[in-house]
């Protein structure tokens, strides 16, 4: 049973540059954890601390209950796949794959068998005696993955492994990784990516990093349906969730909010207690949940400035509610030809209306 645990982990670089603070995570066997977050938020740093490539400046990392802070990388039972593949350019594919095993003084027959087996699953058998420079990008990526599998680690670490591949290959390789994970149910993987689709499709749980800490941990759908805070709400999903400021006018099993700046009154299925009445909140509606309405219950009414017809959907940008604020976006199903410059009234199902007070979701109050 592999259990990887981070307790109060911190990272401060030389010169008092603090990049991560109080990270707590509990990762169980067989999970595929994806780290996402804005660029520079410390995803790679956290991964590299787990790998042992960066010192952990505070807190504790344990794998299977054993403290790992001071262990060198090789003794942590991890394998890492780098964005640049990091294949040894002067070694053949076979030598690349066997390097770690040879260093660990495994017996040659065992090494050969392991390599053959992995090469077969990854369709690398024909390339075993080639140098990395004679391989395509996708093949190199597979060698990098194969190289980590051969070592049979407890934890796999991936740092944006697909970002150097072109779009089509990316999809194919993503599916391969998913199948690979399927075939190794006991392996634990930690995966850093910028790509939402990768995160949503691969992860058993996603860790959203922001502001030097963890913004939320949860399954992909949890993050989508029940974001804990405005940051996660806007980070997951594309285009980002619309936020409109308003005031609570009615509480109970449903909460009713009057939207400011010429908005209407809209109901949310998020329950609230009576003392919230009169406080200001932000309502959040995903573009894909926006619907045109003629009803009196609506979120807002405004003129359409830009309409992007993508075929299956039409993305509609409304005139900003107040000058300088971000425009509200709605995704309308199908083709809508003449919506530009029209004024539309938009609403959403109460179950799709999120409520945030001081940036935190009322769901978790």
């Amino acid at each position, binding site marked *: 049973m592999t259990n990887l645990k981070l307790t109060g982990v911190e990272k401060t670089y030389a010169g008092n540059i603090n990049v991560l603070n109080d990270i707590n995570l509990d990762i169980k066997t067989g999970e595929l954890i994806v780290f996402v977050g804005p660029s520079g938020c410390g995803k790679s740093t956290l991964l590299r601390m787990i790998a042992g490539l960066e010192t952990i400046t505070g807190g504790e990392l344990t794998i299977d209950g054993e*403290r790992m*802070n*001071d*262990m*060198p990388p090789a*003794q942590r039972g991890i394998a890492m796949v780098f964005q640049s593949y990091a294949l040894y350019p002067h070694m053949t594919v076979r030598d690349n794959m066997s390097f770690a095993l040879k260093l660990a003084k495994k017996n040659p027959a065992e090494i050969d068998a392991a390599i053959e087996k992995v090469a077969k699953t990854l369709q690398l058998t024909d390339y075993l005696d080639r140098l990395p420079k004679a391989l395509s990008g996708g093949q190199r990526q597979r060698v990098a993955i194969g190289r980590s599998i051969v070592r049979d680690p407890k934890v796999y670490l991936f740092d944006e492994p697909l970002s150097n591949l072109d779009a089509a290959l990316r999809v194919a390789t993503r599916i391969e990784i998913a199948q690979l994970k399927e075939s190794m149910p006991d392996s634990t993987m930690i995966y850093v990516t910028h790509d939402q689709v990768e995160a949503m499709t691969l992860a058993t749980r996603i860790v959203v990093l922001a502001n030097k800490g963890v913004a939320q941990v949860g399954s992909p759908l949890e993050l989508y349906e029940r974001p804990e805070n405005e940051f996660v709400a806007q980070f997951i999903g594309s285009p980002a969730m619309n936020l409109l400021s308003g005031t609570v006018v009615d509480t109970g099993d449903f909460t009713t909010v009057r939207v400011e700046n010429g908005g209407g009154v809209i109901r949310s299925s998020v329950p609230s207690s009576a003392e919230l009445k009169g406080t200001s909140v932000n309502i959040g509606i995903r573009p894909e949940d926006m619907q045109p309405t003629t009803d009196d219950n609506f979120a807002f009414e405004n003129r359409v400035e830009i309409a992007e017809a993508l075929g299956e959907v039409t993305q509609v940008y409304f005139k900003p509610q107040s000058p300088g604020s971000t425009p509200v976006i709605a995704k309308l199903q199908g083709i809508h030809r003449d919506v530009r410059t029209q004024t539309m009234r938009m609403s959403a199902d109460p179950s799709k209306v999120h409520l945030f007070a001081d940036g935190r979701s009322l769901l978790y109050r």
Partner: protein
Amino acid sequence: MHPALQGLLSIVLGVGGCVAYFYFSNQFLDKVLFPGRGPNAGRNITRANMIRPWLFLLPAIAALSIYLAYPVVETLRLSLTERLPGNQSQFVGLANYQQMVSEPKFWEAMRNNMLWLLVVPAFSTALGLLAAQLSDRVRWGNIAKSLIFMPMAISFVGAAVIWKLVYDTRPVDQDQIGVLNALYLFFGGSEPNTWLTLPVWNNFFLMIVLIWIQTGFAMVILSAALRGIPEETVEAAIVDGANPFQVFFKIKVPQIMGTVVVVWTTITIVVLKVFDIVFAMTNGQWETQVLANYMYDKLFRANDWGVGSASAMIIMLLVSPILVWNVYNARKEMR
């Protein structure tokens, strides 16, 4: 023992020694001093990794301090002392420097060195730039470069022989075998000159040897710099109506100024250390003395360590602006 055998043995010993040092010191660190096992494994490994860089660096630091850092200090000390009989020495302050500046030979060497410093880097760089620009524009440019670069591989002594043949002089009634005299007579010179004994001019004949060697170096580096210039800037200038000379002097040269400076300073350092050419061709006679040869004279012919060291310090003083500038740049770059 036959020197070749001795050489072979020393290669084995020297190289083997180096390898053995690195291997066993690492083994010792990891297995004996801080074993990476047992209860303190993690801490031990961290400690071993703090020490390891110094293991890797030790031989280099030792060699650098003994062979370069210590001599600088020691030469400074020697330049302030006088040797007494029986391996004694006595502090004499600046007396050696005073004696040195009272010698006309020293001032001759200084004057010549300054002349070298002005002429050699300037001509080498200019000719190198010319060769780089020309050879980049023809298809046989690589062969041309290779041939102009070739003197770089020739020793200063070999070059001295080569150029002595060029400067050779025969009596007037014989065929001249030195090209320079042959040409001189061909173009109407009255009688052959012994070029290396013509005061002041002979300095230039010595400098030509170094320019001949260094031009290739300048060319190689400047050629790389020229190729690094974005093609668009040149094309933009052509569209703007610049002629080839304007393109070269107004567009290309300004963009490689940094490299020109680097080439210039590198050649300057070579010039300051120039010894072999003068030693082999004139040995400082006929007013061709330079500092490095003057110093050698003092140290090993006159056996005057005090003045010899003082003149060495003068050379050090002359390179130190470049030293400071280099260090400053290197530090800036590392940030």
